[in-house]
């Protein structure tokens, strides 16, 4: 199955693209998507404790299971206002 991953702010700079797709095994979670990306882009790893995640544009948790066609987003600490 395949998911779209959106990255924002510094996370996007590290990966070099705002959006990418990844093929995953069934049962994969948002956390496993993150670990795969952190393996590809080691500079992402230090963000593990401070990121938030979203699934299909709703806040989610790292243990949420993803499905084919889902949009996963990783959000560094926010700074609006």
């Amino acid at each position: 199955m395949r998911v779209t991953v959106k990255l924002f702010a510094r996370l996007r700079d590290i990966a070099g693209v705002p959006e990418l797709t990844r093929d995953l095994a069934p049962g994969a979670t948002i956390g496993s998507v993150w670990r795969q990306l952190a393996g590809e882009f080691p500079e992402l790893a230090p963000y593990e404790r401070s990121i938030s995640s979203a699934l299909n544009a709703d806040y989610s948790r790292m243990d949420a299971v993803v499905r084919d066609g889902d949009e996963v987003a990783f959000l560094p600490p926010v700074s609006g206002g």
Partner: protein
Amino acid sequence: MMSALLRIGREPLDPQEMAATLAAQGGSGAVAEDPGRDGAVVVFLGLVRNHNLGRSVRYLEYEAYEPLAVKAFERIAHEIRGRWPGVGLALHHRIGRLDISEASIAIVTRSAHRADAYAANRYAIERVKQIAPIWKREYFDGGDVWIEGATADPDDAQARAEAERVACA
């Protein structure tokens, strides 16, 4: 769904228009039924400062995860309806490049008495800073840096209580 009251966009912010929309349409429903009952409108504008942490700021660039940011605004509006039932809220955030003294956020609250409009307005900006998926990149003399504040967790009851404490101080 982006309403006239809760919005993210690239255009300059217009608090007058926001206040007019709020008067006509109401944030809580109660306002529109009888705008004459309201005695207070509070407007907060957040501006781009020319200094931050000892750096000379040249300009900021804002970005947002727009669909989630609008949902975060809706959540904040919902929280305000629960805590301050008579308050109407309009909340607009600007993204893209913003120069010094330009407004990045405008929050307008309206209520029968000033205390609620002030408190709800302060609560709204505190919550935006806690849970809205929006980021600013600061361009200063000598470089640029992403500003990273709070880890966004809308279910963090402690953060929400802190926003309410600040709002009611």
